[in-house]
């Protein structure tokens, strides 16, 4: 019986070194795994904050983008008002338009210039092309829908007609 135990013991004796090495290896693996997880988490927190900031900016932009068609409609209405109109109701409605426009201005939303400008796809979207006497090819001849920037970035490009 003792002889049978001996090899067993011998193996056990040689084990500590290996065991230690194995433990060392595992310790390294676990520690690095932990450090990584910790770092991942901290980085994630940072990214998440960044993402939330971006999301807030984005959702505000979305909201403004949805408000713009209302301003567009006011502007269409304004265009349809006869030049010599003295109707006080019309005046009042147009003042509501000014309220909305001023609010958007205060929020950093600025109209994109089109009159007399060259067509630039960074700011304008061409919806039609027309022969126009006296207009140089590629210049904007008519603004169909106003475009806006928010804090210097395009919120919505201006829709325009371009001279052929």
């Amino acid at each position, binding site marked *: 019986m003792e002889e049978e135990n001996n090899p067993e013991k011998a193996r056990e004796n040689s084990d500590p070194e290996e065991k230690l090495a194995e433990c060392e290896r595992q310790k390294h693996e676990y520690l690095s*795994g932990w450090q990584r997880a910790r770092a991942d988490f901290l980085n*994630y927190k940072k990214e998440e904050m960044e993402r939330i900031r971006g999301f807030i900016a984005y959702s505000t932009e979305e909201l403004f983008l949805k408000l713009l068609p209302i301003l567009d*409609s006011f502007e269409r*209405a304004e265009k349809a008002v006869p030049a010599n109109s003295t109707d006080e109701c019309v005046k009042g409605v147009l003042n509501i338009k000014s309220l909305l426009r001023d609010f958007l201005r205060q929020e950093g939303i600025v109209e994109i210039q089109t009159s007399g400008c060259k067509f630039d*796809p960074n700011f304008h979207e061409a*919806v*039609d092309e027309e022969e126009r006497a006296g207009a140089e090819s590629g210049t904007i001849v008519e603004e169909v829908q106003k475009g806006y920037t928010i804090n210097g970035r395009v919120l919505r490009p201006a829709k325009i007609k371009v001279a052929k």
Partner: protein
Amino acid sequence: MDYIMAKILGIDLGTTFSAMAIVEGGEAKIVENKEGARTTPSVVAITKNGERLVGILARRQQITNPKNTIFSVKRLIGRRFSDQEVQRDKKLLPYELRESTDGGVEVKMGNEPSGGWSKPPEISAMILQKMKQDAEERLGEKIEKAIITCPAYFDDSQRKATKLAGEIAGFEVLRVINEPTAAALAYGLTKKKDHKIIVYDFGGGTFDISVLDVSADTVEVKATGGDTHLGGDDFDQKIMDWLIAEFKKDQGLNLASDQLALQRLKEAGERAKIELSTAVETEINLPFITSDESGPKHLYFKLTRAKLEELTEEYVSRSIELVKQTLGETKFGTNDIDEVVLVGGQTRMPLIQEELRKFFGKEPNRSLNPDEVVALGAAIEGGILQGEVRDVLLLDVTPLSLGIETLGEVNTTIIPKNTTVPTAKSQVFSTAADNQTSVEIHVLQGERLTAQGNKSLGRFILDGIPPSPRGVPQVEVTFDIDANGILNVSAKDKATGKTQTIRIEGSTGISKEEIARMKKEAEMHAAEDQRKREFIDARNTADALIYTCEKTMRDAGEKIAAEIKKEIEVKIDELKKTKEGDSAEDVKRKTAELSQAIQKAGSEMYKSAPASQGGNDEGGKNAAKGEYKEKQNSGE
């Protein structure tokens, strides 16, 4: 860190739109382009000044530059000029096509030297190059490797051309994978053996069906079908046609010849379509759409979901017909299909989902954004190649919330469900009665707001709390779950440091059926529990106020005018009676009345002798069975 693994970009190179994604921390996410959009129009142009534009900028100038604005080049890539498809598209595309010397296709975009005749892979490469640059800018590192997707029906030549496009753009293209396979990957459906999947892909301009057979590590495409010229744009057109017809009936004016009105109609129609995926009715309101001698005209119509379904029914039933046909090409029946996966924005339409549900008798997979699912899947393929997805350390989550019972048989959650473990959280509670020397901690698992109905995991008593007024002792209760789901709950009296703990094994090892049952029960009883909870909260607040009032009367009764004192006593009695009833509203009202009465007393006392009072009744509504919640903190 030993080395930094280069990221692999997953790219869905679409006919009308393209999207890109990467895997980060084991999860795929979309990478936005420079303009901040999650998809990029697959459009390229050369302007009159010889400037090259890609994506949204190219699209914005398309009308002024139709001959030099190339879109839908995917319809041409890797094809021979003599192909039927190419000959058909040639008639529809506004730009010039010609046969190349090797029998392929060439498109003309601009003039030499900035432009000229190009092969389709070169055009696709311009789109891919923009995506590469935008991704590098977004992620702040070089991206060299990519996985690009293509339709399942693409032949060898089309796949080679797609790969070539990636290489011209500067990528090492690790793989060109099928779009339906990518979609299945995004849903994690490729791990199961002997799984049959239908991918129903209804994009803006194309409709594709694929039947996939997943078996040990391979995904085999069993059949493909569809219509390369059927898409969401056809639905928009139907809405426009309807609006034009209705307006003509209504006003006698034809909007079809008014370019600007058409633009507005198209936008409004698409918006209405999107809205009708969630709402059953929407209005299309376009004031000042046009005018005649009599003045301005407005367009205002209501469009119901039912009407939209009626208008587009032919397309939906045609798509289902094509699904039948494609399935018919395999030996599978509808019952053999394990999963239905939806791709493409048009699949958000409820009618489409309903028809598929009816046809296959199962709920389609639609939890991921159908516009992004292919790019996500491509990124996951990249992640698998890299080992990032396969080797992620899987961490368990708590399937149900864990908490303790507090005053009035309320279940106060400490660790909410779906919290990743290991984790620890603690909260400080207090006593509900004066001179209470022990608290019972009853550990609960479940979503019910009342203690009953939740699973009881165990209970213990912490005693030896020094006698003091209610709300003064601080008992910190800590829940700690290790990675194996073993829960240790401890309660510590902060004054004496005395601690009691309980160890509960298997708090996460609860069967799926039981979790489902418990969640369902909580849902079923949610309203009733909410009512009970509200009442208990109101009663606890009332108790706390009664306690404060009685204490005030005892301590400073002589400083209060007799009539006010009398009023307070009456109000206390009333409130005591009311809280034995069952109306939270009544208790709240009576509490408010008593609160007003005691405030009168308070201001009178201040008048006679200004003194500071630090009492705060707010915590009273959380007063617990033996505990009174004061503040909470959570450990990491």
